[in-house]
């Protein structure tokens, strides 16, 4: 079953067609890669899916339901969560608090209950903190739980962003260049982490990445964009040898 279906999505900014008639499907439980040269419209695709932009035409179905026109927080509540290309953590909050913000989506106590500090709100907070600690532990960040997220090193910030997104318990996780700026060792760790997310949590992941080792290493199908339009899609071996992809993006066979 397809978790996400993008159906002929197009968005124009004035005269510029950033995403042009793009269609793809992400099946449940799949690691799906989105690649293409800079400015190809990959991040714009993410912004369309997460509701930051509204497509000029076309449709996006999630879990069999159209999410076009929904607000970002409604889409997050439906089960799509993302990380950002330029890390967007809540800088002055601690690593733990960042993750709790993600988990807060599933809260049940009301604001008046919290303002009056009713037991239910306290217990729920304790539960959220516990869950967040567990997630931090999974991502090897438990020892940094109380550090300000701005003070974490780069690799940890990237990992914390994924942990924060996972805290919303998404059905579909969108990762926007998770390996950007990482050294080769960190990249290997990240690949293992992404595979574990899929194997242990059954997480469906849609991934934008420039690092071909990472993309070819973890993704099961790949979709290639150039100038806002599809130029190829298929399994990694096929993409690697596709002449159009080589010309537009890869340059030489990897």
């Amino acid at each position, binding site marked *: 079953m397809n978790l996400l279906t993008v159906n002929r999505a197009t968005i124009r900014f004035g005269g510029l067609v950033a995403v042009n008639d793009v269609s793809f499907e992400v099946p449940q439980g799949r690691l799906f890669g989105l690649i293409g040269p800079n400015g190809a419209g990959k991040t714009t695709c993410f912004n369309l899916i*997460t509701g930051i932009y509204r497509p000029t035409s076309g449709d996006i179905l999630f879990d069999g339901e159209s999410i076009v026109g929904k*607000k970002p927080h409604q889409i997050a509540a439906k089960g799509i*969560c993302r990380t950002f290309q330029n890390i967007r953590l*809540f800088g002055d909050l*601690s690593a733990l608090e960042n993750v709790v*913000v993600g988990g*807060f*989506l599933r809260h049940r106590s009301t604001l008046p209950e919290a303002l009056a500090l009713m037991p239910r*709100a306290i217990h729920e907070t304790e539960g959220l903190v516990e869950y967040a600690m567990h997630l931090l532990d999974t991502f090897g960040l438990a020892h940094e739980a109380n550090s300000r997220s701005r003070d974490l090193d780069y690799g940890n910030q990237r990992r914390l962003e994924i942990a924060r997104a996972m805290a919303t318990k998404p059905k579909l996780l969108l990762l926007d260049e998770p390996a950007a700026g990482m050294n080769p060792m960190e990249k290997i760790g990240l690949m293992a982490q992404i595979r574990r997310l899929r194997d242990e949590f059954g997480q469906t992941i849609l991934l934008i990445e420039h690092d071909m080792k990472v993309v070819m290493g973890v993704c099961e199908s790949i979709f290639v964009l150039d100038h806002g339009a599809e130029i190829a899609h298929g399994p990694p071996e096929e993409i690697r040898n596709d002449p159009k992809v080589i010309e537009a993006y890869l340059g030489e066979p990897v």
Partner: protein
Amino acid sequence: MTTARIWLVRLLSLGAVILFLWLLQTKISPALGFLDNRLIQIGLLYATLAVSLNLINGITGQFSIGHAAFYQIGAYTSAIVSIHYYRTGTIEPWVWLLLMIIVGAVAAAMAGFVVGLPSLRLRGDYLAVVTLGFGEIVRIIIQAQESLGGSYGLTVSASNSDAPLKIAPMWMFAALAIFVIAVCRNLLKTAHGLPFLAVREDELAASAMGVNTTLTKVTAFVLGAAFAGMAGALFSHYEGFITLKQFDMNQSFLILAMVVIGGTGSITGAALAGFFLYLLPESLRDLPDVSGYAVFGFAISVVIVLIVSSKTRRYVRLTSPGAGQTLFMIFGLVGVLGALFMGFWIWSQEVPRMTQFSVSVLAVGLACAMLFTRKRMPNLAGLGWIVLCFGAIIALTYPAIQGLQSNAFTSNLLGEISYRAGNLRFPLFSATLVVVMLTRPQGLLGHHEFSWDWVKKLFGLPHKSKELAG
């Protein structure tokens, strides 16, 4: 924590608060003079206002600079209701006042909702301009209404009497401040506070994490406005007479400055700054007049010393760090002794108790912070440097004044001018603001809350590290 324990703690703290309010009302307040009572009451009112603005500006990061308008709406609405419906002798005054506080809160909350709406689309400076405009609109509308007293002001009185209604007791001021601080603290103590902080940090990321940013921002405005409305209702029933001037743009900026100095996002910082920044200028009212020569001479020497000191300190550090450090520490000790003497001396002066109390607490606090903390050596040296600069400023002021007096041009300009100390309150306030912003751009407490663990850490005592909902 188990549910039983939560309720036990709740009951105990409620009991403690009631005991404190009772003591304040029956023992402390009667022992103080009129002026001291007034200073404490208005100080608490400003603490309430600063904490309520902090919810909007500091915690949610929506830069609002029209806060006095909510205060004003609370004050005028409750005053009008009292004028029409309150009859003396029919209902206990403090019960009526509680009702009026609710009225003020509801009226201001509705206004907060209206102002909150543009905040959905506007950010930063744009929102600031809108809130500023809103504040002025409210003021001008009231000015144009004769039934609201227009620019003459409005006497708050019962419907069966003409005497101004002054029914706000001391305990109510403390209770309101405690209530507002407690509600804000509860918000940050539970996970419900995090969406507000997340909106401040990064709105886009917050919405992608499922935070309803619209709802969060409007909630912050409604709550903050409601608190300010409560303070307004209390104020109008305390003074018995309200005028537009008490709610103008200056008020908004005063409250904003309190939040900024206290540390944006810090509840305790805002409360402390609100209380003490009201006291500080207020206690200078009784000082003698100052001549224009003295003010400008002082300003000139401050500028000279600041320029020279920044160069020399580095020079001393580089050339003779050890000897320089020792010298600074000696001056630091002199500074501590001077502060303690000042605290002691002020008790013998004819000034309000609150001034005596604040100065002494500050002096003892400074002495403790300097002598008993872990980093006492560098702290003491730092203080010594400030004492040196201060001494140099005083020493330079005299020749600067002489120079101004002997120069024909400046003596023509300044000869006739003398400043009333009361009017120097705002320049002093601005100077405080400038100094705080230069040394601690995040405000005195930054984004942090005051905690005893923090004090313990400062003094090198065992402490536990910060935890959410601990």
